[in-house]
């Protein structure tokens, strides 16, 4: 098995006639993903490399039975596209767009979390279940079918670590880029929970970075709820400490958000943390060998 995207995925691409939308929709299709439709207002009746284009997501869903939407729409129009996707009733929405204002995303997130649809991203590279489906912008050649579940906030680090895993002959069940924005639809905890429930995932690799406290929350959660082994990588040890403008951040001290703080929180809960992408792949190899 795999999580979120697989052979049952029927994908509609919002913004399919744009430069990036067309390029990546075509590549996703070439990988074997069932790309059933595209949406660009005013362009119904056209097609992109054989993928039919509709005016609205609802039309696309009604005509093709799409169950997953990928949003490739520029930031100013992306929240509208997200609400449109939510209202079309698809199960899963993957938002690649970078640069959506945080206030907009706070509202989308609050609305979405009241229902039971899943949002991945924004500002994410998408999801790939190697050998089954790729939805997003990931360079597919670095991923191979296997039994590691990879979840990451950073797109490029996802590729880097997958390449390191490939060098050791290790593939993935699924790879999920949850996105780097302050407000994203799914957290580490959401994705780790799915991997833990997936019988074909033997090990989880969690790739975090400075800022926020999602890694620390995940550390607690993993210790209490997750039976699949987890190894981790955190980027940003050399990042300069941010300056403090107001008092609000410091008053209510949550976690520090530093790479060191995250590493310590994870290690305290028994999650091994590699110091560089190569070492993380080695830790994964050791953890798999120990099973």
């Amino acid at each position, binding site marked *: 098995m795999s999580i979120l995207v697989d052979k049952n995925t029927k994908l509609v691409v919002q913004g399919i006639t744009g430069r990036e939308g067309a390029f990546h929709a075509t590549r996703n299709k070439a990988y074997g993903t069932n790309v059933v439709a595209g949406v660009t207002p005013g362009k119904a009746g056209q097609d992109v490399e054989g993928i039919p284009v509709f005016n609205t997501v609802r039309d696309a869903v009604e005509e093709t039975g799409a169950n997953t939407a990928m949003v490739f729409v520029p930031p100013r129009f992306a929240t509208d596209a997200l609400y449109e996707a939510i209202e079309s009733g698809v199960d899963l929405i993957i938002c690649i767009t970078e640069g959506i*204002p945080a206030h907009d995303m706070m509202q989308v997130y609050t609305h979405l979390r009241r229902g039971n649809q899943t949002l991945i991203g924004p500002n994410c590279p998408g999801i790939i279940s190697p050998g089954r489906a790729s939805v997003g912008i990931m360079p597919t050649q670095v991923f191979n079918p296997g039994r590691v579940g990879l979840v990451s906030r950073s797109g490029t680090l996802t590729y880097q670590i997958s390449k390191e895993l490939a060098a050791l002959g290790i593939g993935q069940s699924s790879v999920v880029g949850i996105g780097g924005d302050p407000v994203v639809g799914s957290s580490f905890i959401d994705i780790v929970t799915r991997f833990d429930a997936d019988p074909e995932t033997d090990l989880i690799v969690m790739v975090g970075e400075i800022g926020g406290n999602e890694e620390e929350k995940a550390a607690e959660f993993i210790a209490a709820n997750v039976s699949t082994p987890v190894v981790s990588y955190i980027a940003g040890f050399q990042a300069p400490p941010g300056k*403090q403008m107001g*008092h*609000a951040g410091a008053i209510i001290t949550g976690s520090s958000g530093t790479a060191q703080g995250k590493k310590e929180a994870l290690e305290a809960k028994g999650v091994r943390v590699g110091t560089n*992408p190569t070492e993380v792949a080695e830790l994964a190899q050791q953890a798999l060998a120990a099973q």
Partner: protein
Amino acid sequence: MALPSDGAICFVNTSQGRRLDLFEYQGKQLFARHGIPVPRGEVADTPEAARAAAERIGGKVVVKAQVQIGGRGKAGGIQLADTPEEAEAHARKILGMDIRGHIVHTVWIEAASEIAKEYYASVTFDRGEKKPLVMLSAAGGMDIEEVARTRPEALATVHIDPLTGFQAHHARWLVYHAAIDQGAQQGVVKILQQLYQAFTELDTMLVEINPLIWTASGDVVALDAKVTIDNNALYRHPELLEMQQSVTEDPQERLAQEKGVTYVKLDGDVGILGNGAGLVMSTLDVVALAGGRPANFLDAGGGSKADEVVAALEVLLSDPKVKVLLVNIFGGITRCDEVATGLLTALDKLGATLPIVVRLDGTNEDEGRRIIAEQAPANVVVEATMLSAAKRAVELAQGVEA
């Protein structure tokens, strides 16, 4: 009380959400537009101008250093002046002052208030909850952090549903639980509503008033203004975009801003260009592990095209400390052939002769590597992995040093 998690770190990169901190005087201009009472004041950038401003304002004034960092009062950057002469003397001392790495180029001269009480009010984006958090305390002023630590009950907090917004009942709840003095309650309720409105309408990540004062004559006034804007929303706030121009100090950072490149200067000698904040941060870490010192953080961004690579290299090469360049690209949405073309164009245009170590992987990697192999000058070396590229760059930097 829930724990916001966005505390000490606001490292500028895409993954943390780019932010723009405003000066106090800019924040106060915005507050005034939202109906929040602020003292009358003027900006000055010379002691003489400070004196003239003090004369126009009349009476006692306060001379305030304008830097994008808190704790100015404790650093001596806020001084009371009884006369215009005194204001000039204070401005002379404060202008040019270094407040924790921030040089003071301007002062704000404002009418001194008669303070009866100092309160604290803020609205901040709570990343952990993904909701706005409003905080209010009757024990505001320069020691608010200490108060929050030792007497957390003195700080009233409430999370707001971003879909339904801030209601009057939230304001009442805060005012009662923060034990705001009765005579000031009405004024504080009104200001909280205006502050929340400013928070959403200006797309801010933080609006903070410390102190929010209750004056001897019974008014509630904002004596300080800390405002942080979400850069992703600047496209719908042209007036804020203008404020941004005035705040960047470092020449490389200013150039980066003009060129639209995400850049943070560090103090090493290995210049770094990568795509994607995570990979760039990891590159800095790997360079440091290899014994080198990164000169910068530079994220050329997703979908970097040739032009962006040229702009990025222009920024990097304008830093005289950079001895070696490490270009670390893993293309997803970015295409390696476009990066390679950009690199060659930039080298041609800028005539750079320093050693450049390149690692290219991902989308269109073969074309990218072919372009470099066939057309790049001799100072460009290609390494197969990120780790080996980092090591090579560090060796070269040390070699140049010796």
